[in-house]
């Protein structure tokens, strides 16, 4: 399939957005949904065609010396700042872009389909705002696709903003609910703050390298080095400016990818409809940060300082989020923290994939982490979308997010239960499910970087297995389900089941994708083999975690409560997400609003404006004082005039006399 079809892949969702957004209210709700799904289906087919052609095609110039070349489909100028700094709206295909095309379109199609059933009330009628919902989904898909095929860093920034806005619109979809409005606002502002750093990073980077384009920045290792060299060794506070730029850019990515401490928006974002959470806040948008770092990978490899920051942040976030996920009672939040943890895995994997000594010979160690990260991104998108869609089905059935309202659902919703289990096994890293393969590569890469990093990540992997099964068991087992709504919970209509089945299937088989040959940073195939020690130990740890979860949560018992009581402080802190939200609340409301905005507004009204008013008042007072003379009484005027005239006359006479 010609690569020009990529244009259609990006354009169709945009068209669907405009079409559904402008004309949606004129059409029936159901029709808009169906149209949306059809549009997405076409997009998906085209995207698969393009991606598969890219990976397996042997067209002219596609593979040079065993290296798959990046292909620029189009690259028109969009906005020229100066001769060199030109923002282009291009389409470029390289391994990760092609992979992301598959991920985005797959998950998006599933979500489109799933929403047909999910976004209905219990009579099967579509909800109010159905058209809007599909329009926003299309907008999001467009933005995300535009992001991954970007040819320059500014284009990524542009689409970063776009996905931010579509995420804002979708989280706030139920705009009557204050919680949703608040969550959407928070998500937007936090990511916006991160984008500010991203922007500054871009400014610095583009100033010193004189370009936005990826082919001039990171086309290969040599261009990356010359790009770094073009900064001329400029430093700021002891670090090279490029390292600063890269760090700032990473902060931008960290905002979207919910790295600590910018993760706070993601759990709240679960206020949006669950399919949206599956699409945006589990599978696609949140990996935009990982994608961004992967895009600039060669630069990060050269600037180790920036890479180390990513490593520390990623490793810490992975553990931190996993710890919180262990105690959450809201299943979507628990999944959200799991997402954060998994994305941190990807970040860590990217960051460990370089070692200090050999910067140019990138094969082996350095490429592995990158590949593992991208592979994990791919598999994680599939199984996390599956988990979220299952969660959506459960929530749809019991009308609650809290696992205390669930318990024992296995009997009522067997299909969902099995799908959820597959997802859990995948994320826990049990072979042969998808997650095992990718996570294993990550762990190998981490052990190559250092034993400590490897052990740390293994531990987090074990925690992952534990909390996922905790969630699973608390939902589907633990005790008998108490039916508290008018309907018994049951499996869902086919529109919702079909995506579950498809995604479950993918989650099982995705591990067998020849990732090492596909998702490499430079397009050259990577030769890897299973590291049995690491694989064996990680499976063992996962099994330990699962077993612990079964011991604690399979049947109702008081062990969890006792554990909770024994470490009450820790539990509460973790349940409240270590009070990060409160800290932010304090900083924004108390410090920024209370100490900056309010005083400034006061200052403006009273000091600046007061000065102006004072000037006006002084003038006014003067004129009032003078006004007395202008009494308006003509008799007084005549009198004063006479007095004046007489004075002059008398003065003249006196002068004459003297």
């Amino acid at each position, binding site marked *: 399939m010609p690569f020009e079809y990529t244009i259609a892949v990006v354009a169709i969702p945009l068209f669907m957005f405009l079409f559904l957004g402008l004309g949606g209210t004129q059409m029936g709700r159901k029709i808009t949904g169906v149209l949306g799904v059809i549009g997405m289906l076409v997009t998906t087919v085209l995207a698969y065609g393009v991606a598969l052609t890219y990976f397996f095609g042997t067209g002219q110039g596609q593979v040079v010396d065993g290296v798959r070349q990046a292909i620029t489909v189009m690259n028109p100028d969009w906005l020229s700042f100066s001769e060199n700094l030109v923002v282009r709206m291009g389409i470029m295909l390289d391994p990760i872009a092609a992979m992301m095309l598959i991920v985005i379109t797959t998950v998006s199609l599933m979500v489109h389909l799933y929403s047909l059933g999910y976004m209905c009330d219990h009579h099967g009628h579509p909800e109010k705002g159905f058209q809007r919902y599909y329009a926003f989904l299309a907008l999001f898909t467009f933005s995300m696709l535009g992001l991954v095929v970007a040819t320059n860093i500014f284009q990524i920034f542009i689409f970063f*903003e776009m996905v931010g806005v579509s995420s804002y619109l979708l989280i706030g979809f139920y705009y009557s609910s*204050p919680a949703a409005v608040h969550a959407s*606002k928070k998500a937007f*502002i936090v990511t*916006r703050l991160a984008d*500010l750093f991203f922007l500054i990073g871009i*400014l610095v980077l583009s100033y010193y390298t004189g370009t936005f384009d990826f082919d001039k920045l990171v086309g290969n290792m040599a261009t990356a080095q010359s790009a770094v060299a073009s900064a001329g060794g400029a430093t700021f506070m002891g670090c090279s400016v490029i390292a600063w730029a890269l760090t700032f850019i990473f902060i931008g990515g960290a905002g979207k990818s919910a790295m600590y401490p910018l993760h706070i928006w993601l759990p709240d974002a679960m206020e949006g409809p669950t399919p949206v959470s599956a699409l945006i806040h589990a599978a696609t948008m949140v990996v935009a940060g990982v994608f961004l770092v992967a895009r600039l990978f060669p630069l990060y490899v050269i600037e180790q300082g920036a890479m180390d920051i990513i490593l520390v942040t990623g490793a810490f976030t992975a553990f931190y989020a996993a710890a919180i996920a262990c105690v959450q009672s809201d299943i979507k939040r628990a999944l959200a923290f799991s997402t954060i943890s998994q994305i941190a895995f990807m970040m860590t994997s990217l960051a460990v994939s370089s070692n200090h000594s050999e910067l140019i010979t990138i094969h082996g160690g350095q490429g592995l982490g990158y590949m593992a990260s991208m592979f994990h991104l791919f598999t994680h998108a599939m199984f996390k979308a599956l988990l979220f869609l299952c969660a959506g089905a459960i929530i749809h059935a019991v009308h609650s997010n809290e696992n205390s309202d669930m318990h024992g659902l296995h009997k009522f919703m067997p299909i969902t239960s099995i799908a959820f289990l597959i997802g859990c096994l995948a994320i826990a890293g049990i072979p042969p499910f998808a997650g095992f393969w990718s996570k294993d590569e990550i762990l190998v890469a981490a052990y190559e970087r250092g034993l400590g990093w490897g052990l740390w990540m293994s531990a987090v992997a074990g925690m992952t297995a534990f909390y996922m099964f905790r969630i699973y068991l608390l939902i589907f087992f633990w005790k008998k389900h108490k039916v508290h709504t008018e309907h018994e919970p049951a499996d869902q209509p086919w529109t919702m089941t079909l995506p579950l089945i498809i995604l479950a299937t993918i989650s099982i088989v995705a591990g067998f994708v020849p990732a090492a040959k596909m998702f490499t940073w430079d397009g050259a195939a990577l030769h890897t083999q299973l590291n049995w020690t690491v694989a064996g130990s990680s499976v063992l740890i996962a099994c330990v975690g699962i077993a612990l979860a079964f011991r604690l949560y399979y049947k109702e018992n008081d062990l969890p409560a006792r554990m909770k009581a024994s470490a009450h402080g820790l539990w509460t802190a973790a349940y409240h997400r270590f009070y990060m939200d409160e800290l932010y609340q304090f900083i924004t409301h108390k410090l920024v609003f209370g100490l900056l905005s*309010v005083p400034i507004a006061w200052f*403006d009204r009273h000091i600046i404006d007061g000065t102006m008013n004072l000037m*006006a008042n002084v003038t006014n007072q003067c004129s009032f004082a003078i006004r007395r003379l202008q009494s308006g009484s003509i008799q007084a005027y005549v009198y004063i005039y006479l007095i004046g005239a007489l004075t002059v006359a008398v003065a003249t006479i006196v002068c004459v006399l003297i």
Partner: protein
Amino acid sequence: MMIFDNILIYFVIVPVLTLAGLALTNNKGIAAIRAVAVTGATVLVALALYLVYLFLHLRGAGDTSEMLLQTSVTWYEPMNIKLALGVDGVSVVMILLSAFIVFAGVFASWKMDPLPKQFFLWFFLLSTGVFGFFISIDLFTMFMFYEVALIPMYLLIGVWGSGNKNYSAMKLTLMLMGGSAFLMLGLIGIYFHSAPEGQPLTMNLLEIAHNDAIPHEWQYYLFPLTFVGFGVLGAMFPFHTWSPDGHASAPTAVSMLHAGVLMKLGGYGCFRIAIYLMPFAANELAWIFLILTGISIVYGALSACVQTDLKYINAYSSVSHCGMVLFAILMFNTTAMTGAVLQMLSHGLMTALFFALIGMIYGRTHTRDIRKMGGMMHIMPYLGVGYVIAGLASLGLPGLSGFVAEMTIFVGSYMHSDVFHRVLTIAATTSIVVTAVYILRVVGKLLFGEVQDEHHRSLTDATWEERLSTATLILSVVIIGCFPNFFVNIIAPSFEPVVSALESASHMMGM
């Protein structure tokens, strides 16, 4: 007469003819008044579009002179005052902007009551001044049209305004007049140094710039005078306080025209007169004004965060955005200055859109206090969506105009390599976050959430003329946002003379 061959003069003649037409209508015949006003505004839009075409055509044909379509007619021989017309890319886009806003403004004041005829009379007088200002290249005519544009504000706010309108109208007019007093001093000073010893003095901008005869020590006085004079209109800190009160009291269309176009006169004048004619002092004194405008940007945005009146929020946001315009102009490179003009366009359109929507919402709810409103999205979806789009444009969503402008400004500003400019640039960039905060706060409170007042449930959505008015603006915002290069290609070359003048001045300083 020669001058009537020039398309530019028709930008003044058309509003004047509209004025005459309005004067002939009956006070009661609202249909006739509307017809005349709409005709005038439509002709202006058509003329503006034709001007853009003509401009591109002439440039395409290889006409590289600094100002195109130049004509001049002597008005007053002894002082060498001429009606000199001419446009470059910047003026062209400003004229286009003005035409669109006048057009939208006419529809936004469709149901103006009382005295619709008189309202439109003053409205078109104001537009006469605005267009006249942008087409002139003679200091005297520029100043004259500037005043023509300012004075009607007093009556428009004082008569048709709301709230504390007398105070606001007075404050606005007095402060702007104070600005023009500075400006007039500056212009007179420029005039008396406009030519080298022994040559006739001139008021023509291009000739003055070409003569470059203003002594450096004089530039130190004249530059601040003119810059502050225009800066007052551009809402530069600390001369911005007319803006919140004035906008809050002004009727919809006047707010639109004022924030949309009139405030741009400030930015336009700053570079066209202050910087272009006095590059030496501009280089030397820029830092003072950079600090002031930098304060404007952050200060306006932070102030907007805690306001509760919709129009105040917008007025403070205008302070921030217009601060950005002046800030970028003072960066003295083509990229930043282009960004400044884009920002003028963008801010003009989106603020006009904001004020139009606020006016429409206020016309229905009779309150502008965001604490008393909520859930408007349910009640008036069209206006709600419009408001969200305006908000997104304001906080810089790609695809809408604000993003393009701000990014151009930031990239341009960052091209300076010294710490002072860098720190200011980074401080200015923080405004994008703060802007997001206050925009989302308003959107969240006003449009989303629960309906606060049960009476609001019975309100209606936009009527056709309101839809037309807002749709025009939204479309313009989207067009600029999606096809920025079209505008950049018109604007950027116009800055070459200014930038080269600045560069040679700084070169001289270096020696």
